[in-house]
């Protein structure tokens, strides 16, 4: 039913999204923690910067990535010289674009779940002898887990669907940067490509549905027995 090219597109999409979410997870969590609990000057600015990709035209985000991480961009040149990591016209660039676009959604979900953790429980743990690190590991983190998982799945779904920043930043190269939405867009440009568009779109629907179901199941399971399946999981 599906051609080898189409499977290649799906495989690439999953790889790009998995890498994007995997790398963004710790960054998003640290930012969510900072925004939920931190008290510092410039918090509003950090908040705004994190949310920028959510409201900026994706083309602009892609162009900014091009300037920063392109072959002659300051970050791009540094990464290429020191780590041998290049982004131009490569799947790594697609992953970077997906990561940047998924970041705000992930931070939002995680921030809500951290804010929903009852600080009074953290106080109680401290009176029982727990150090701040232990309070975090045994109380805060486990109680925030449903939101963290929901944030990760949401970020994954967003990455699968990423289009504008990707095509601007790393173009539409088969086998490297042609993820699902780019392949659908490409097929639409070709006369007689409707059948392929339909097949690829069905895959996109299936992947998105699967992500939502997985997120729901994860949230339910981690809330089992505690009845706290609400906090910060349904952010959209």
């Amino acid at each position, binding site marked *: 039913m599906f051609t080898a090219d189409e499977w290649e597109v799906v495989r690439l999409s999953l790889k790009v999204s998995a890498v994007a979410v995997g790398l963004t997870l710790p960054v998003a969590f640290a930012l969510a923690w900072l925004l939920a609990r931190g008290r510092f000057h410039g918090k509003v600015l950090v908040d705004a910067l994190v949310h920028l990709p959510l409201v900026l035209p994706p083309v602009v985000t892609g162009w900014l990535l091009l300037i920063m991480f392109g072959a002659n961009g300051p970050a791009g040149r540094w990464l290429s010289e020191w780590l041998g990591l290049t982004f131009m016209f490569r799947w790594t660039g697609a992953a970077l674009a997906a990561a940047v676009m998924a970041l705000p959604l992930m931070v939002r979900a995680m921030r809500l779940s951290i804010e929903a953790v009852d600080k009074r429980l953290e*106080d109680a743990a401290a009176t029982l002898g727990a150090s701040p690190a232990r309070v975090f590991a045994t109380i805060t983190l486990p109680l925030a887990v449903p939101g963290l998982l929901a944030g990760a799945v949401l970020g994954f779904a967003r990455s699968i669907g990423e289009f504008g920043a990707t095509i601007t930043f790393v173009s539409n190269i088969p086998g490297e940067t042609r993820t699902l939405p780019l392949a659908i867009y490409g097929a639409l440009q070709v006369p007689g490509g409707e059948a392929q568009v339909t097949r690829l779109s069905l895959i996109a629907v299936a992947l998105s549905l699967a992500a939502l179901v997985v997120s729901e199941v994860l949230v339910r399971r981690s809330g089992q027995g505690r009845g*706290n399946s609400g906090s910060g999981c349904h952010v959209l």
Partner: protein
Amino acid sequence: MSFEVRVERRLGERMIRADFAAPGGLTALFGPSGAGKTSVLNMVAGLLKPDEGRVAVGGEVLFDSGAGIDVPVRHRRSGYVFQDGRLFLHRRVRDNLLYGWKLAEPEARWMTLEQATDFLGIGHLLERWPRTLSGGEAQRVAIGRALLSAPRVLLMDEPLASLDAPRREEIMQVIERLRDELALPILYVSHDRSEVDRLASQVIELIG
């Protein structure tokens, strides 16, 4: 074992002051709501920092603004029983009870899990989740969790407030036994005269 508490703290417009010493037994902090009773308890526990003052339990200084002493909450060994229980909802009753016990120095522990569950009659609840407990059961687990953390003093913040009449009586009896059978000083916050008359060996009145 004894307390010495002399603390002052401004919270917004209010000035919270307390100055008392207690030899042991159950000392009730009594006064209308808003008098700052819970704040005084929090200052003893280290959850709230006094602007000025001194707190000592059993001769050990926990806070002294003059000498620059401020022992962190986790080292104060105060068994705090909160008004709302504050059980850890993601841990079963057993793990709630053992949370502080595991963190205590082995030689400081003075109660085993079995002794605590026998004392409080909660042996049958060990595998339950906190959400499934009744108010009275949850409060007994909260008391057990505090006792097992090897405390030198028990701080109780209106532990009967969220309970119905039969449960109040049940927990009241538990508190009387704590007072009479354990050599553990108790600082007990309440705004209920009858409760204080029945339980307290000493009453400190806080005026709002």
